[in-house]
């Protein structure tokens, strides 16, 4: 079962994502960037790290880009190898080039999905991040997650 952290200051957004992902594993929620970083640090310390974080960007206390940077720094400090890191999926109503490229190239986001989220697209992202079975897995041994 996957461990998922869903970060959004909008309770409805968290509810919708949790409902769509609950069957895949345990969904924890954080209502802002500060709470997300704290939850991630606690999970790391308890040796129960998250497999994936779904991160909103526009949040009042700490925005999602900064929270993603801090989560990456936590994993660096804990010596987590790149391939073992939690996958970071940005989920935001901001769909402009600046935010998307900043998320990918400056905050190590693995995926960016603009809102409103279509669950098949989110499911496809989890497949492509190596968290669910991928049709390409069976083809050869040259690729990794």
């Amino acid at each position, binding site marked *: 079962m996957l461990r998922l952290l869903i970060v959004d200051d909008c309770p409805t957004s968290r509810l919708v994502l949790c409902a769509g992902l609950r069957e895949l594993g345990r969904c924890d929620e954080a209502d802002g960037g500060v709470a997300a970083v704290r939850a991630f640090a606690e999970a790391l310390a308890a040796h129960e790290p998250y497999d994936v974080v779904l991160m909103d960007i526009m949040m009042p206390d700490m925005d999602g880009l900064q929270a993603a940077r801090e989560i990456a720094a936590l994993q660096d400090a804990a010596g987590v190898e790149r391939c073992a890191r939690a996958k970071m999926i940005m989920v935001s109503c901001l769909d402009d*080039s600046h935010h*998307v490229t900043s998320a990918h190239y400056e905050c190590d986001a*693995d995926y960016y999905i603009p809102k409103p989220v*279509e669950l098949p697209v989110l499911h496809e992202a989890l497949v492509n991040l190596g968290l669910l079975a*991928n049709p*390409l897995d069976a083809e050869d041994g040259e*690729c*990794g997650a």
Partner: protein
Amino acid sequence: MTDERGKCGGGRAMDERFLMIGQGDVFTAPTRVRTVLGSCVSVTFHCPQRGVGAMFHALLSRRCEFERCERNNAFRYVDSAIEETLKKLGRLGVTPAMIQCKIFGGANSLVREGFCSGRRNVEAAFETLERRHLQVVATSVGGERGRKLLFFPHLGDVYVKLLNSSLCPL
């Protein structure tokens, strides 16, 4: 029509196509479209209403910056590849409002930096897609590893695996 991702109606194997650098096409029949990307960019296009799709594999960001290199191959450059694809889809009656796009590739190449920047390719893709008011539903770009893609244009599904090698192909 397709009954699964490997067979067409009647059990016939689905068409296969591999896109090399500078290639792109529109697919009106169920097809398994593949490519391998490093700092290059692929944009997939899918029209749910018509069940058609398109994809290209572009090496460089903007045609105007490399005009002398190869004038005739629109799919070599991200911006002209998008325009060419829209032209082809338009001939099928598919308008930008009907299309969902996904963007892949743009890895940080450890070699050829400056000549072939993944980030510049991705920025060119966004700039052109925004100008044409195309909807982007997902992106997976950047990083230091190449990507192997499998696209089903009639469904819009894209499967990706990261390559193990840290040295990207183009």
